[in-house]
């Protein structure tokens, strides 16, 4: 979900990178390409004569299915007896189960009234009265939709997963923030953790922990801890030099410096990290339902298998509501840091918290007396029926025979036949070494030689794993979906950047699309576009669009007003302003939008395995369903490599430079 926000604090830097600097930067690019061409002239004939062109040569692959198969067998036969499981994984698993159970029982004991009031009170304390009302309304809505118990299960899971992610992230971030060497070692690890589509590592987790909550929580932690670690390190490293010097000159020890100066100074980043971690964990809660995590995600998944969009939506809405409430609350808390408390003295500081706790306890107690532990069954609104009717109507009217554009079915088959197929045959038709060369050229011109090396090695690893062809298939789907996403996203963003009103209108829509679990719209998408790669691409576009629109709008808006004013005073039309001032100045944001689009689309193209996108996505789903580590893990690894390569090839130069400075 929130991967767009996951690499945060990257302000567009308007005004830099123009003029003579840009000209200078272009020249090394030409030099790099020349060097690459030279290397190609020398190496390609050699490679070609040895291994031939076409798809990746068999001689250069390593078959992992044997070893991976025996790893599976070993785990299954030793899981109940080997000390590694008895004394290590077993305890982790028990600890997770116990903590989730603990939180769940507390939530049940508070009852629906208690939980709602508690959420509202916390939101009120950290973010003000408006959010308190939003929080209360959201929880009541969860109850009204008949989703109270699953919501509490998801919440319990989330609390434990987020706490674990925060602790792990803090530890990693602390290490990386205090030591340069750790920082350098850790950065690629965090990069990988973030590019990794969650689907790819569910399988090994299942093998070790079995299905259910422990595996789900651990998979979530892997996914959600990186932003916390990254932002903690960023905050610690960014501590004001002057302040640090002053503290040192006062004779503070290392620990004192850390506790009294560095950490407090990094509070904003820490809170942002918490925010990101929560959002990522929530998006994972649904994917984890595939391995039996229970809760809302499970309801969505079960509805999906019964082809019941209405029921899926009823379970999806609470997820969106939870995400919105948690996001806004932590965001507001971050904004409030450092500002003076307001309101009557009675409500400030610990008194306010005490009051909040008291009210919540009183309501929970009252709820217990009236036996209100679980939401009353007769107080629910069934939305599934109407939603299904609406969906059926929509599908009936859009599937075929729409004037001018044709129905969605025709659209899908045109897209598959006219875009996806040529792209796929083009990519698989390219000689393998030329793909490596193209990747190197792209990555090197946009980044450093290290970026290029990572990208090329990642691509080569795909070949070595023996999944070159399905990977090219997946790549073609990603490219096609990214192209559509960018065209749509940029046009919407240009509109939104011009009109405040449109942007305001868009915000809730983008929120919903970004946080709604993809499983909810997979079925309508199949109904509209048929089974195959087209629906997967459509789902990917829906998922990646909000991030692109947001980043681009922000970038266009952030353009130096003086530059715009200057252009306007010279008599530039709005079109000219956009083309000649806004777009060039917002280049870093646009590049970032491309990068995010690629990463997000890749994540969904994988889930597209569930609606017939084939290739790597299908292999991962197959591996998970059949407990086939060899197929699943190899495909998962290929996805990771593909993700790394795409990330490097599209990573904006500005971001690289800033990180390295």
């Amino acid at each position, binding site marked *: 979900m929130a991967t767009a926000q996951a690499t945060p604090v990257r302000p567009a830097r308007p005004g830099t990178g123009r003029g003579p600097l840009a000209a200078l930067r272009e020249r090394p690019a030409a030099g790099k390409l020349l060097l690459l061409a030279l290397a190609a002239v020398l190496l390609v004939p050699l490679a070609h004569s040895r291994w031939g062109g076409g798809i990746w040569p068999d001689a250069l692959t390593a078959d992992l299915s044997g070893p991976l198969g025996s790893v599976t067998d070993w785990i299954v036969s030793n899981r109940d007896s080997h000390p590694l499981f008895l004394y290590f*994984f077993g305890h982790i698993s028990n600890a997770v*189960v116990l903590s989730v159970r603990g939180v*769940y029982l507390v939530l049940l004991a508070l009852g629906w009234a208690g939980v709602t009031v508690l959420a509202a009170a916390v939101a009120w304390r950290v973010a003000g009265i408006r959010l308190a009302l939003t929080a209360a309304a959201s929880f009541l809505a969860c109850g009204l939709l008949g989703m109270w118990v699953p919501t509490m299960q998801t919440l319990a899971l989330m609390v434990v997963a987020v706490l674990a992610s925060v602790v792990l992230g803090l530890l990693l971030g602390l290490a990386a923030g*205090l030591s340069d060497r750790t920082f350098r070692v850790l950065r690629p690890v965090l990069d990988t953790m973030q590019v990794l589509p969650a689907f790819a590592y569910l399988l090994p987790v*299942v093998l070790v922990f079995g299905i259910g909550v*422990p595996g789900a929580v651990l998979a979530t932690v892997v996914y959600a801890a990186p932003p916390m670690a990254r932002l903690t390190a960023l905050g610690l490293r960014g501590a004001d030099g002057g302040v640090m010097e002053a503290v040192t000159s006062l004779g503070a020890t290392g620990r004192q410096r850390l506790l009294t100066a560095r950490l407090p100074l990094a509070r904003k980043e820490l809170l942002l990290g918490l925010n990101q971690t929560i959002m990522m964990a929530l998006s994972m809660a649904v994917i984890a339902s595939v391995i039996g995590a229970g809760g809302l995600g499970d309801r969505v998944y*079960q509805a999906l298998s019964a082809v019941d969009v209405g029921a899926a939506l009823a379970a999806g809405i609470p997820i969106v509501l939870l995400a919105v409430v948690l996001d806004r609350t932590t965001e507001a808390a971050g904004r409030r840091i450092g500002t003076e408390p307001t309101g009557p003295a009675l409500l400030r500081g610990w008194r306010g918290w005490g009051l909040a706790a008291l009210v919540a306890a009183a309501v929970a107690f009252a709820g217990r007396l009236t036996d209100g532990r679980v939401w009353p069954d007769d107080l629910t609104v069934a939305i599934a029926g109407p939603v299904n009717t609406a969906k059926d109507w929509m599908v009936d009217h859009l599937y075929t025979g729409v004037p001018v554009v044709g129905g969605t079915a025709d659209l899908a088959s045109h897209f598959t036949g006219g875009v996806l197929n040529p792209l796929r045959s083009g990519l698989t038709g390219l000689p393998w070494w030329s793909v490596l060369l193209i990747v190197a050229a792209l990555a090197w011109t946009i980044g450093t030689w290290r970026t290029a090396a990572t990208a090329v090695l990642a691509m080569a690893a795909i070949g070595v794993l023996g999944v070159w062809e399905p990977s090219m298939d997946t790549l073609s789907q990603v490219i096609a979906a990214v192209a559509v996403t960018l065209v749509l996203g940029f046009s919407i963003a240009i509109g939104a950047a011009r009109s405040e009103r449109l942007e305001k209108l868009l915000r809730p829509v983008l929120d919903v699309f970004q946080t709604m679990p993809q499983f909810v719209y997979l079925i309508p998408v199949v*109904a509209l576009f048929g*089974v195959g790669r087209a629906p997967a691409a459509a789902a990917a576009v829906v998922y990646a669009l909000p991030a692109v629109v947001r980043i681009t709008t922000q970038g266009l808006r952030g353009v130096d007003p003086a530059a715009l004013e200057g252009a306007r005073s010279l008599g530039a039309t709005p079109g000219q302003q956009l083309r000649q001032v806004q777009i060039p100045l917002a280049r870093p944001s646009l590049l970032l939008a491309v990068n995010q689009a690629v990463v997000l689309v890749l994540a969904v193209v994988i889930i597209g395995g569930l609606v017939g996108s084939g290739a790597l996505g299908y292999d991962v789903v197959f591996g998970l369903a059949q407990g086939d580590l060899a197929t699943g893990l190899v495909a998962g690894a290929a996805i990771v490599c593909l993700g790394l390569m795409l990330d490097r090839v599209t990573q904006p130069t500005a971001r690289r430079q800033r990180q390295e400075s």
Partner: protein
Amino acid sequence: MNRSRTRLLVALASATALLTTAGCGAADMTRQASPFAAPAGVKTVTLSVQSWVGAQANVAVAEQLLKEELGYRVDLVQTDEVPAWDALSQGRVDAILEDWGHPDQEKLYVEEKKTIVRGGDLGVTGHIGWYVPKYWADKNPDVTDWKNLNKYAKELRTAESGGKGQLMDGSPSYVTNDVALVKNLDLDYKVVFAGSEAAQITQIQQFAKEKKPFLSYWYQPQWLFNEVPMVEVKLPEYTEECAAKAPEDIDCAYPTTPLQKFLNADFVERGGDAADFLKKFHWSEQDQNEVSEMIASQRLSPEEAAKRWIDRHPDVWKKWLE
């Protein structure tokens, strides 16, 4: 900087030491219930639900009876088939009510490790095959024999199947030999995997709405037959010798499988009423379809569908409680 790093290391080391000493007892990976299971003192059963509606129907009826008649709390866990076996052996799930045959798993868990025991027939017989819609077969009666399939390949072309005809397969968790069959029977078809049963059903419904021809891997019993009548395509006859071949050499039809129940061994010993009840659970295809149809087609909740069936058929389920 250096000092703080040492401190950090010391802290980490002591934390690890603490964890190791605190966790010196062995943890049992075989006995881990769901954290959402009911609090102590309440009797619970955890059932595995598979993704197809027939399995949901079994579970819904079992759940309802366990709750209402025997006073259990029932937890449901949704998983694919092979992971479900895994979960069953570990005790995370107490029972699988509908298994379509997993010889590898049976050998490992039932015969070797003895963590799973057989729970007997479900009463429903499963059959996998290739199906075409009735409206199409009525017009072209010879399509129901595999020998004539190549004649129709052109009509079944889609964007995904390229120049060949499309044979639609479903979820990756299902047992299928279709890729081998297409190759060994020399058919001009491409197997397109829908990736999930939901996607496959949606596509079939869409085809049926337009009365378009299609060829699909499908199985009985299945509620969709009531909505979209389908006719099976005759494949070369199933034989034991053919089934014993390597997966890529198989060139005959799928067998008919009496669907089986499996229970966790520990649960059978200590499960009391619930284990007895689940062992006796036995109903017909017709019964199952009645519930499935209510769930999938009439969009009743599984709970509601189960309640209605239970009201109508006390004669069937009363026997399971004796």
